[in-house]
C-alpha cells in the first residue's frame, strides 16, 4: 500500500476544512463583506458610525466589562462547585450535579424572567424579604448591570462546571498520591498539583462563559433597558430593526474582535501545554477528599446554592405555567392546568418538539464528531494549518445568533443550493453555532491526553482510523459526552437562529415559545418550556439507568 507514504491526517483535515468553509467561513464572509459596503460601494461608513456615536462605543465597553465580570465569577463558582461535587465525599453528589446543570435548559430570556419573578420589585423573594425585614424597598435591583452579571453568571457557570468536572474525573490520581506520600498537606496539593492540572479546563470553560455572556441577547435585553444599560448585542438588534445591515455587521465584527483577543490571551497563558498532559491511559480514579466535620455544613451550603440557582428559577417557571395569567396573585383560584392542556393539544407545539429533538440530536452528534476531529488535528496531530481550522471553528460562538441566521440566508438561500425553507438550513446554522462548544471542550480533554499513547500505537503500525477509534475516542469520550450535553441542551431550546430560518412545518420549540411570549401569553410559553424541561429530566434519567450512570449529566 502506498498510503504509508501519504499522511492520511491531511485527508481528514481537508474534509473538515471543506466542512468548516461551507458552514462557517462562507456564510460569515457573506455578512462581513457587506459591512464594508455602502449602497453597493466599498466604504468604511459603518465602522465610522460605531466609533463616532457614543452610544455604540459605550455599549462596546459595557459588553467587555460585563463579560469579564461574568467570566471571572463563573470560573470561581464553577470550579469550586465542580471540585466539591466531584472530588469530595459530599452526600448525594450525583443528584447535586444533575440539579446544578439543569437550569441551562432554560432559554436565557426565561432565566431572566424567572429571576424577575423572584428578585424583581414585585418578586416572590423580594416580597418575602420586605415582609421579614420590614424594608420599604428591597436593597437590590435586578434591573441593571448588577442584575445582568448575576443572571449571566447563574446561566453560564455551568460551562465551567461541566468542563472542570470532566477534567477532575479524568485526572490521574498518582500525582496527588506522590505528593501526599512526600508529605504535602491537602491545601498544598490542591494549589500545586490539582489546580494546575485542571487549569486548561477552567480556562476553556471560562472562555466559553466569557464569550457566551458577550454574545447573549435575551438577558441584557430584558434586564438592561429599564436601567438604560446597553450592550453590543442589544445595539446590534437596534441596527437590525432599522434595518442597517452594515452597522449590524460592523458592530458584530467588534464583538468577534473582542472574543478573538480574549482567545489569543488564553492561548498566550497556556503556552507550554504539555505541562498539563496527564492522562496516560490508566484507569485510576482520584481519591475522594474526606471533608470530615465540614461534610454536613458544606452539604447544607451547596444545597442552599442549588435551591437558589436551580430549583427556585425552575419552580418559578412552572408556577408561571400554572397561572391563569402572568402576575396573578398566588391562590388556588388562579392555578390551572389549562396552559399545559393547550400546549399538549397544539399541533404546532407537537411538531416543534419533534423538530427540535431531531435538530438538537443531529447537531450535537455531528458537531461533536467534527469538533473532535478538529481538536485532534490541532492539539494532538499539530498539523500545519490546523490552528487556523480551530480558530475559524470557534468564531461563530462570538457572533450573535441573529447575524448567523442572516449569514445562512445570504449563503444558502439562492440557487443552485437552496436549503432555505427546510429543516436543513436550521441544522447548518446550529452546526455553525455549536461547533465552537465541541471544539473548545474537546480541546481541553485532548490536552490532557499524553502524546505517548498515540505514538505507541503508531509505532506498533496502527493506521489513522484505528488510532482514532481505539486510542483517542475512548480517552476523549467523557469530554465528548460533556460537550454533547453542552450542545444538545441549548440547541433544544434555540430561539434566535430558528426564528429567522424556520418555515411552515419546520417550527422549533424556541419559535413557539417566542411567538407565545410575544403575543403576551407568557404562561403558555412557560408551559411549553416546562414540558421541555420535564423531557430532559426524563431523558437523562433513562440514559443514566441504561448506561449505569456513565452518560447523562
Amino acid at each position, binding site marked *: 500500500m502506498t498510503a504509508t507514504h501519504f499522511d492520511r491526517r491531511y485527508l481528514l483535515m481537508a474534509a473538515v476544512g471543506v466542512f468548516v468553509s461551507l458552514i462557517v467561513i462562507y456564510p460569515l464572509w457573506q455578512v462581513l463583506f457587506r459591512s464594508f459596503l455602502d449602497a453597493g460601494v466599498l466604504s468604511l461608513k459603518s465602522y465610522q458610525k460605531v466609533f463616532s456615536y457614543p452610544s455604540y462605543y459605550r455599549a462596546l465597553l459595557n459588553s467587555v466589562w460585563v463579560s469579564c465580570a461574568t467570566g471571572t465569577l463563573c470560573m470561581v463558582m464553577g470550579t469550586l462547585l465542580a471540585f466539591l461535587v466531584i472530588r469530595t465525599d459530599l452526600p448525594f453528589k450525583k443528584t447535586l450535579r444533575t440539579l446544578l446543570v439543569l437550569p441551562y435548559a432554560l432559554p436565557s430570556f426565561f432565566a431572566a424572567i424567572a429571576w424577575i419573578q423572584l428578585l424583581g420589585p414585585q418578586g416572590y423573594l423580594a416580597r418575602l424579604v420586605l415582609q421579614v425585614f420590614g424594608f420599604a424597598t428591597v436593597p437590590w435591583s435586578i434591573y441593571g448591570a448588577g442584575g445582568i452579571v448575576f443572571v449571566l453568571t447563574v446561566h453560564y457557570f455551568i460551562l465551567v462546571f461541566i468542563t472542570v468536572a470532566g477534567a477532575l474525573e479524568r485526572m490521574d490520581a498518582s500525582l496527588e498520591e506522590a505528593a501526599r506520600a512526600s508529605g504535602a498537606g491537602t491545601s498544598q496539593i490542591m494549589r500545586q498539583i490539582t489546580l494546575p492540572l485542571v487549569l486548561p479546563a477552567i480556562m476553556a470553560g471560562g472562555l466559553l462563559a466569557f464569550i457566551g455572556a458577550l454574545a447573549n441577547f435575551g438577558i441584557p435585553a430584558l434586564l438592561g433597558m429599564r436601567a438604560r444599560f446597553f450592550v453590543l448585542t442589544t445595539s446590534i438588534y437596534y441596527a437590525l430593526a432599522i434595518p442597517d445591515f452594515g452597522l449590524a455587521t460592523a458592530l458584530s465584527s467588534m464583538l468577534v474582535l473582542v472574543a478573538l483577543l480574549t482567545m489569543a490571551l488564553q492561548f498566550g497563558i497556556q503556552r507550554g501545554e504539555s505541562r498539563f498532559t496527564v492522562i496516560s491511559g490508566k484507569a485510576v480514579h482520584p481519591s475522594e477528599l474526606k471533608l470530615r466535620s465540614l461534610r454536613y455544613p458544606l452539604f447544607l451550603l451547596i444545597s442552599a446554592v442549588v435551591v437558589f440557582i436551580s430549583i427556585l428559577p425552575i419552580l418559578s417557571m412552572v408556577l408561571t405555567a400554572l397561572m391563569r395569567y402572568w*402576575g396573578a396573585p398566588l391562590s388556588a383560584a388562579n392555578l390551572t392546568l389549562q396552559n399545559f392542556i393547550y400546549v399538549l393539544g397544539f399541533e404546532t407545539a407537537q411538531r416543534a418538539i419533534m423538530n427540535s429533538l431531531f435538530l438538537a440530536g443531529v447537531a450535537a452528534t455531528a458537531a461533536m464528531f467534527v469538533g473532535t476531529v478538529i481538536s485532534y488535528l490541532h492539539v494532538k496531530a499539530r498539523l500545519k494549518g490546523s490552528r487556523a481550522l480551530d480558530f475559524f471553528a470557534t468564531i461563530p460562538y462570538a457572533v450573535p445568533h*441573529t447575524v448567523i441566521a442572516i449569514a445562512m*440566508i445570504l449563503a444558502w438561500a*439562492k440557487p443552485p443550493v*437552496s436549503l432555505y425553507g427546510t429543516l436543513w438550513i436550521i441544522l447548518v446554522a446550529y452546526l455553525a453555532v455549536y461547533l465552537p462548544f465541541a471544539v473548545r471542550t474537546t480541546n481541553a480533554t485532548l490536552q490532557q491526553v499524553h502524546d505517548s499513547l498515540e505514538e505507541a500505537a503508531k509505532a506498533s503500525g496502527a493506521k489513522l482510523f484505528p488510532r482514532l477509534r481505539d486510542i483517542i475516542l475512548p480517552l476523549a469520550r467523557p469530554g465528548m459526552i460533556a460537550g454533547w450535553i453542552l450542545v444538545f441542551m441549548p440547541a433544544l431550546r434555540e430561539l434566535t437562529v430558528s*426564528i*429567522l430560518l424556520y418555515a*411552515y412545518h419546520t417550527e422549533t420549540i424556541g419559535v413557539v415559545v417566542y411567538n407565545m411570549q410575544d*403575543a*403576551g401569553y407568557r404562561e403558555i410559553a412557560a408551559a411549553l418550556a416546562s414540558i421541555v424541561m420535564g423531557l430532559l429530566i426524563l431523558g437523562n434519567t433513562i440514559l443514566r439507568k441504561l448506561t449505569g450512570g456513565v452518560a447523562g449529566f
Partner: protein
Amino acid sequence: MNKFSHKLSLTLLAVCGMLALTCAVVLAQAKSPGRVLLYTSVPQQLATQFADAFMKKRPDVKVEIYRAGSTEVGAKIAAEREVGGIRADLLWLADAPVYYDLRKRGELLAYISPESKAIPADLKDPKGYFAAGRLINMIIGVNTEVVPLKDAPKSWKEFPEHGKKAVMGNPLYSGSNFVTVAAFVKKDGDWSWFERARAKGVAIVRGNSEAATALAGKEFGVAMTLDYIVAGLIKKGAPLATVWPSDGAISVPSPIAIIKGTKNPTGSKTFVDYVLSKEGQEFLVKQEVIPVRDDVKPPAGQPSAKQIKFMPIPYEWAADNAPAIREKFEKTMLQ
C-alpha cells in the same frame, strides 16, 4: 476497509440520502399551485385560526404562515432582498412605515380589492398597494390594584405624570411604538412629551407585550400598550382596565399587501379579499380585534373605529425621517 471507516461512509451515505429526499420535497412543494406564503407579525394563534377559516372557504388555496416579531420579519426580508428577492407572497405586519418603504422600492403589487370599498380612505393606499387588515390601538392600560381607575391618566398628556409607575415600549424595537413616537412629535412639534417623561422617570421596556405583562405583574400602574393585549389579559382575569386617551388613541393599521414577485397572484388576491371582507372582519372581531370596516360591529365592550378619537399619524414623514427619529428618541429617553 475497517469497521470505523465503514460506519463513517454509511453515515455519509445516509446524510446524502436525506439531503436528496429534502430537495425532492422542496421541489414538490414549489410545484404545488395553490400555495401562498404569508409573512406576518399578527399573533400566532390569531393568524393560524384566521388562515384555517379562510382555507375552509377556499380549499384550493393553501396558506403557509411564517410568524415572527416586526424586527425579525424586517431582517428576514432585508436578507432575502440580497439573494433574489422577497420570498413571501403576502405581508401582514403592524409596522406601517415598512409598507411605504416597500412601495418606494417598487416591491408591492397594486391590487384594489372589491371589498376595499367598505374601508375608510385613511386606512388604505389610494393605488391599492396595501390596505389595513386590522386595527391595533395604542392605549393606556391601567392596573387598578396599583392605580385606582379614578386616578388613572385620562390622556397622553397626563401619562408622564405617573413617573416611575408608568411604562412604555421601545420604538427602537417595536414598530407600533415607533409610529406612536412619530405621532406625538408631529402633534407637539417638539420632543417636550418625551423630555417630561424622562424627567419623571417613565420606564422603557422592550415592547408592548412586555409592558402589558409587567403591568399585570404590578410592577407598574399605567402602561402605554396595545388594546388587544390588555383585552386578552382582562379576559383571563387580570385586574386591568383600558383607558382611551382623550387626546386620541394611536391607531396602528396593520396593513396587508401582496409582494410583486408572487408566483400566485390569484391566490394572494383571494386571501386579501377575505381579510377585508365582512366575514373575515367578523372572524377577527371574535378575537377581540377592532374591525376596519364600518359595517362590522366591534367586540363587545370595545368602541368602534368611528367612536374612538384618533391622533393623526404622519406615515410618510415617519418613513422618511426614521433614522433621525430613532436617534433623537435614543438621546432623549435612553442615554
